[in-house]
């Protein structure tokens, strides 16, 4: 099979400071992350010939990924202008198979010969935006249009409502328990305590979890990730750049981006799985590596239950077996067979919308994760998305 991935490496990574109350505004954070990634790749802004972001400067969208306050960050045109980049390709947009579509688009541009070095970034200032917002539910006075009309009039306002439906069905079919969901949250917090940039550092116990506020049954406060301000960037380069770069290149081994179900939240047919099942199968069809080869993973954890769907979708366990797989937390701990969310993930380090996982897994594969380093990590998996939105990447140290 022709695999465009073999022509693509991640040559540089960057991340701004991350926090709940930062002095810097989101454009400054974005440029911090971008300039760090460009320098890390051994490049200068003048070398960048492509830019991709998710979702771009979107303030309103009728599709499956409607932006909320602070969720879209500066658009691609603003970043190109701020850094005076000269590009042969750029793109920003939300109608994709999840957030890693930005990385996949960058890979396609590089493999297709359109670009040599594509800057990819994801920036959010949801902590600031939510603090300023007076209404948690924004209502269009003209009435709800597009796909959201099937959910908002019923008070299905937010992610916990939508994913609560999936979680209830998974529990019903497979006997998944709240204690198993808690194992994801507790593991993230343990790892966050080893990451100085993580926003939630206090100890979290099973008792804390079980007694916390219920948001949308069966999801409680600690099943939900935490909004932050912060930006992450990577540079996707042509493999030729390996010889010229100062650091350790990360090979894109395979991508997964398939969607074989309905492109809908409310009409998704089998709520015991998400599009992770399709993207996960797609990824393994594009590589000779196996799930057992993965040394470290950053599986999407906007909600705890999403990590379960990704564990099954990427075949780290059988269908319906993700609850028992994570129970007790030993398998997914830093010294377990599949260390997960080693930075603390979105649940405890902060909601960087999958790009936090990408940055962390690159650090792990480069051996630069300091006090939370997984020994000799060679292969890593990262994933992004929920419900009908899913994309994933398999990464390898070269």
């Amino acid at each position: 099979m022709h695999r465009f991935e073999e022509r693509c490496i991640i040559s540089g990574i960057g991340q701004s400071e991350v926090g709940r109350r930062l002095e810097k505004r989101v454009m400054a954070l974005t440029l911090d992350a971008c300039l760090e990634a460009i320098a890390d790749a051994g490049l200068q802004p003048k070398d960048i010939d492509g830019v991709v972001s998710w979702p771009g400067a979107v303030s309103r969208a009728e599709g499956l990924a409607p932006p909320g306050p602070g969720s879209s960050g500066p658009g691609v045109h603003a970043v190109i202008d701020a850094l005076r980049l000269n590009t042969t390709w750029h793109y920003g947009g939300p109608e994709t198979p999840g957030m890693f579509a930005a990385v996949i688009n960058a890979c396609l541009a590089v493999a297709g010969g359109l670009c040599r070095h594509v800057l990819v970034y994801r920036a959010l200032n949801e902590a600031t935006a939510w603090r300023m917002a007076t209404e948690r539910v924004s209502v269009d006075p003209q009435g709800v249009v597009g796909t959201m009309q099937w959910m908002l009039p019923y008070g299905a306002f937010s992610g916990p409502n939508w994913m609560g439906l999936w979680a209830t069905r998974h529990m019903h079919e497979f006997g998944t328990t709240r204690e198993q969901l808690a194992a994801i949250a507790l593991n993230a917090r343990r790892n966050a305590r080893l990451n100085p940039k993580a926003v939630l550092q206090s100890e979290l116990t099973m008792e804390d979890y079980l007694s916390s506020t219920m948001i949308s049954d069966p999801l409680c406060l600690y099943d939900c990730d935490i909004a932050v301000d912060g930006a992450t960037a990577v540079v996707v380069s042509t493999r030729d750049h390996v010889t010229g770069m100062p650091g350790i290149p990360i090979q894109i081994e395979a991508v997964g981006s398939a969607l074989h179900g309905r492109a809908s939240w409310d009409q998704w047919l089998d709520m015991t799985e998400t599009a992770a099942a399709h993207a996960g199968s797609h990824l393994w069809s594009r590589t000779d590596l196996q799930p057992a080869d993965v040394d470290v993973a950053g599986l999407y954890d906007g909600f705890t239950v999403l990590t379960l769907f990704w564990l099954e979708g990427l075949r780290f366990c059988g269908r319906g077996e993700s609850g028992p797989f994570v129970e007790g937390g030993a398998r997914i701990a830093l010294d377990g067979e599949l260390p997960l969310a080693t930075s603390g993930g979105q649940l405890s380090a902060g909601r960087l919308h999958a790009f936090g996982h990408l940055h962390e897994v690159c650090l792990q594969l480069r051996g630069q994760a300091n006090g939370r380093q997984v020994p000799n990590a060679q292969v890593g998996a990262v994933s992004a998305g929920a419900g009908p939105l899913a994309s994933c990447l398999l990464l390898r140290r070269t």
Partner: protein
Amino acid sequence: MAWPVPDINDDNEAFWTGGRERRLMISLCEECGYRTHPPTPRCPSCFSDRVAPNPVSGRGRVYSFTINRREWSPGLEVPYVIAVVELAEQPGLRLLSNIVGCVAEDVSIDMDVQVDFVERPPAFLPVFRRSAG
């Protein structure tokens, strides 16, 4: 808070206003008999354009549900049940809706329900109540 209502247009009018006559209107293909929601100009099964809104029985079963307990906006009355209801007419024919008229904790998967309508101008929202089955 101002409760969100749909923007009524030619495509969704039958669904959102059928409740005025207490009818749940779901798109039906006159060619192959397949029903689909939300309505689209072509049948997604046989791709015929002979599709039109058509009343269903309003009977269904709870496929999954969640109890929203979070006051997302000041004045939002909680808790309430958000459910995915599978309609009796066809496997996989579903609506996201609310289960009303019972204690939230009494709702369960596979519970039999029957449609009812809540007027929220300009729409009549199809919601569901527990039924004897």
